[in-house]
């Protein structure tokens, strides 16, 4: 980089910075769960409308992330994990991130409403609003229950996807919502266990900072137990077939082993492992739902 532009703010944002502002890693999971809802819903969408729905869910996720980056710029600068975010480094001004996020949110909701239906658009608006107002602005800096309640926002995309196809909500998308909702706390607490100094420095009251590591590990074990039970519900209630049942059992055992290791051997290595395995677990559960649905269609 030329010396004149050593200062990141002077250099200005690269196109890639706007992409990073939308937290593409989070968007990937949101998209996958949203597509799961779209695919499992009864009825068929025209491919163009399906593409529009997927785009709206992705853009909605990016909008919420951009607004989160705007509000959290002060604490993002203090944490190792987030200090290279475009707003934290100054490559994108916080106000620009806010404007970008609001524009994307309006775009996503309006296109969802006009191209699909207003139930899905309302749910998408609620999801973005919940993430911004309830999680980011209200809970994140105030309570260790931040990601327990705030996790609802991340769990809603399959419901949005389902509503985009059917114009309503049913039991199966609510079960997927429940699974993601229960998955979120142990996932983030595993991360917080090995990033607790980061969160403490930024003054974010994550559970390990407020209650300590042993209490957090207890919570991870308890939530995982409830999560694994909830993951069985789609099969128990006969919404899915044997492929999902077997996959949920295997993935549950795999995740449980790593949570057990975190409990027995509390160290950074087991916490990182539990965090990574939780991601594999959720992707696996969603993939199993899709595979089960595909197999049912194949045999019928």
């Amino acid at each position, binding site marked *: *980089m*030329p010396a*004149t*532009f050593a200062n990141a703010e002077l250099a*200005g944002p*690269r*196109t890639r910075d706007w992409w990073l502002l939308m937290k593409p890693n989070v968007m990937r999971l949101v998209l996958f769960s949203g597509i799961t809802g779209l695919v499992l819903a009864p009825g068929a*969408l*025209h491919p*163009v*409308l399906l*593409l*529009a729905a997927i*785009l709206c869910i992705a853009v909605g996720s990016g909008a919420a992330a951009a607004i989160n980056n705007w509000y959290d710029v002060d604490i993002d600068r203090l944490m190792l994990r987030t200090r290279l975010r475009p707003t934290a480094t100054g490559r994108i001004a916080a106000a620009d991130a806010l404007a970008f996020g609001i524009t994307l949110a309006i775009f996503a909701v309006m*296109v969802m409403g*006009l*191209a699909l239906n207003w139930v899905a658009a309302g749910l998408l608006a609620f999801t973005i609003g919940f993430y911004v107002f309830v999680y980011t602005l209200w809970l994140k800096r105030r309570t260790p229950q931040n990601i327990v309640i705030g996790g609802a926002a991340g769990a809603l995309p399959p419901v949005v996807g389902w509503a985009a196809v059917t114009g309503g909500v049913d039991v199966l998308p609510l079960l997927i919502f429940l699974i993601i909702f229960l998955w979120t706390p142990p996932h983030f607490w595993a991360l917080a266990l090995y990033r607790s100094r980061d969160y403490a420095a930024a003054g974010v009251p994550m559970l390990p900072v407020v209650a300590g590591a042993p209490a957090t590990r207890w919570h991870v074990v308890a939530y995982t137990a409830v999560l694994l039970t909830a993951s069985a519900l789609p099969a128990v209630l006969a919404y899915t077939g044997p492929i999902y049942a077997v996959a949920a059992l295997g993935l549950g055992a795999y995740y449980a082993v790593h949570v057990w290791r975190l409990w027995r051997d509390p160290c950074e290595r087991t916490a990182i492992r539990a965090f990574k395995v939780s991601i594999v677990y959720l992707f696996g559960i969603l993939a199993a739902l899709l595979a089960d649905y595909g197999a049912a269609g194949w045999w019928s």
Partner: protein
Amino acid sequence: MTGETAEFRRRRLRRRNLALLGVLLGLVVLFYLITLVKIGGNV
């Protein structure tokens, strides 16, 4: 500002403008297709 940095900024602006153009063209095509589908009643 040196010639090198001016060139650097010019290239960056050009890349950004092309990216914006791509996004706008993509949106025009998407809205066009959505309109066709909705008018056609293929919902």
